[in-house]
C-alpha cells in the first residue's frame, strides 16, 4: 500500500512538473502522431504489394504495430523517464545526484524504476490501442474474449521483459557512468515493429532469446490474433521472470559500485 501511494505521489508530481511547460504537450502530440503515421504508412505500403508477409496478413501486422506502439507508450510512461535520469553525462550517476536516491528509506530499484512519469505517453497508449482496434475490425469475428485475456497476460509478460532489459542497460551505467546504454536498445527495438518471423532464422533466434524484443511484440500480437499456444505463453512468462531477477541482480551489483561524484 505504501509503495502504491508512493507511485501515486511520483506520478502526480511528474505530471505537475510536465505541466510547467505547455509547449511540451503539443510537441509530444505531434511526435506521437508522426510515429503513428509512419508506422501505418509502412504497413500499408507493404500490403499494397503483397497479401501476406511470411504468414502474417494485414490485420496481424497491424496488431504487431499496435502492440509495438502500446508497449513503447507504456515504456515511455514511466520506465524510460525513470531509468533515463540515471544515464548520460547529465544523468544522476554521473553528476552524483543519485546520492539523494540512496539516502531515501525506500528500495533503490523501486525508486529508480518509478520516480519519474511522463503522462503525455498516455496519448501514445491511446493511439496504440486505436491501431489494435483497427486490427480487430479488420479481423472480423475471429477476435474472442480468450484472445483478449491471453493478450493481456502476454502484454504483462512483454512489459516485464522490456523492464528487465532496460533495467540491465540502466544498471550498466554504474560501470560506465556517462554512456547512454539505452540508445543501443532503442536501435534494436525498432526491429520489433514487424513480426519477428520475417527476419532470417539466426536473427529470429537472437531477437527471441538474446535481446528478446521478439517476445515483447510478437508474442502479444500472436495472442491477439489467436495464434499463440499456451506453452509459448508459459515459456515466455518464465523467461520474463528469470530475466527480471537477473536484471535486478545486475542493477544491485551496479549500485554497490556507485562511488558518488566527488564534491
Amino acid at each position, binding site marked *: 500500500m505504501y509503495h502504491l501511494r508512493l507511485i501515486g505521489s511520483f506520478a502526480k*508530481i511528474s505530471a505537475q512538473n510536465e505541466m510547467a511547460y505547455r509547449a511540451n504537450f503539443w510537441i509530444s502530440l505531434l511526435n506521437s502522431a508522426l510515429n503513428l503515421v509512419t508506422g501505418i504508412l509502412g504497413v500499408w505500403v507493404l500490403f499494397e504489394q503483397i497479401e501476406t508477409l511470411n504468414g502474417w496478413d494485414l490485420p496481424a501486422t497491424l496488431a504487431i504495430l499496435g502492440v509495438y506502439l502500446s508497449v513503447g507508450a507504456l515504456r515511455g510512461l514511466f520506465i524510460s523517464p525513470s531509468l533515463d535520469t540515471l544515464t548520460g553525462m547529465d544523468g544522476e550517476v554521473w553528476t552524483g545526484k543519485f546520492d539523494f536516491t540512496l539516502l531515501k528509506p525506500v528500495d533503490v530499484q523501486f525508486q529508480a524504476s518509478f520516480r519519474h512519469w511522463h503522462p503525455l505517453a498516455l496519448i501514445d497508449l491511446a493511439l496504440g490501442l486505436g491501431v489494435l482496434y483497427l486490427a480487430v475490425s479488420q479481423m472480423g469475428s475471429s477476435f474472442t474474449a480468450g484472445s483478449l485475456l491471453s493478450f493481456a497476460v502476454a502484454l504483462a509478460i512483454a512489459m516485464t521483459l522490456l523492464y528487465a532489459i532496460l533495467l540491465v542497460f540502466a544498471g550498466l551505467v554504474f560501470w560506465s557512468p556517462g554512456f547512454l546504454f539505452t540508445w543501443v536498445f532503442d536501435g534494436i527495438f525498432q526491429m520489433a515493429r514487424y513480426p519477428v518471423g520475417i527476419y532470417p532464422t539466426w536473427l529470429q533466434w537472437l531477437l527471441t532469446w538474446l535481446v528478446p524484443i521478439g517476445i515483447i511484440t510478437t508474442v502479444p500480437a500472436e495472442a491477439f490474433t489467436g495464434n499463440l499456444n499456451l506453452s509459448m505463453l508459459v515459456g515466455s512468462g518464465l523467461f520474463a521472470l528469470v530475466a527480471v531477477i537477473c536484471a535486478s541482480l545486475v542493477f544491485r551489483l551496479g549500485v554497490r559500485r556507485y562511488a558518488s561524484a566527488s564534491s
Partner: protein
Amino acid sequence: MVEKQIEVRKLTKTFKVPVRAEGFAASLKSLVQRKYQEVEAVREISFDIEAGEVVGFIGPNGAGKTTSLKILSGLLHPSSGDVRVLGFKPWEREPAYLSQISMVLGNKSQLLWDIPPMDTFRVLAEIYRVPEKEFNLILDELIDLLDMKALLTKPVRNMSLGERMKCELVAGLLYRPRVMFLDEPTLGLDVSMQGRLRRFLTDYNQRSGVTMMLTSHYMADVTALCPRVILIHRGELLYDGELAGLASKLAPFKLVRLALEVDSPKPELPPEAEIVEQENGRLTLRVARAEAPKLTAHLLNTLPVADLSVEDPPIEAVIDQIYQDGEVSA
C-alpha cells in the same frame, strides 16, 4: 550518560583511480591496458560524537571530509574499520537508519526544478511517512525559523541560491532526523545569507537536539556553529577537540603585537622574532610558543614599548598554514 550517536574506529577508505600519461598514444593505450593507482582518501580515523553535538569537520580540499561524510551517511562502503551511527552500520542502508538521518549538500539539490518546493516537500513527507498533521506542524516551524513563507509557491528554478538552500534545509528536516550531515551548506551564499543560515542551524540544534556534523571551507561557519572541530588532512586526523584549543595545540607559535613610542628609532629585533606586519610603529611578530615569555621580556627591556600583547594566532591563520603545509611550524 549522554548517548554516543556516531562511533568511528580506524575508518579507512581507499579508491582505485585510473592513471594515464598525457598524449594521444597514452590515451590509445589506456583503451586496452588501463593502469590504476590506489589512493587512500581516509586513513584510520577514529572519533565519537554524542547526541546533540555540533561538530565541524574541517580540512583542505581533498582531505577526505566528504568521503567520510558519505561513509557515515551510507553512500559509500568503507575499505576497513568500523562505523556505527545510531547503532546502525550506515552502508547497509536500512530504512530504519535512513529515516533518522539527513544529508544536505551545498552543491547538489534534491528539489524538483520546475515546480514550487511545497510539492517536493509533500512527496518527501510521503516517503518518510510523516502524517499530515505532523507535516504541517514541522513545516510551519521551519518556515517560521527560516522566514520563507513566500518561497513555498515559487518555482525552484526562479529562486536565488540562498532561497534554494533554505528549501534544501526544510527538505532535509521535514521528518525530524536525529543526525544531520551538512556538506558545505553555505557554499556560494552571500555573507548575509550565510549568517542567517548559521543562526537557523544554531537555533534548530538547540530546539531539537539534532546532532550535526558539518563541513565547510568558511571558517566563519565553523567558529559560529561548532564548539568542537575535527581536523583532517590527507586522510589523517590531525586534531579533535574544542575549536579554541586548535590554535594552541596545532600552532606552535604566538603573535606578539607591540606599539612603539612615537619617533622611536628602527628597532633591532632578535632573529627568533619574525615580522608579520609593520605599520606606523606597530609591529606584529611571530615567535615560537616556548620562546614567547623570554622574548616578550627582552622586547620590554630593550625597546621603547608603548603597548604589548601576546595572542594566539587567529584560527584562519592556523588553518591556512595547516592547509598549505600539512603541519605548522614556528
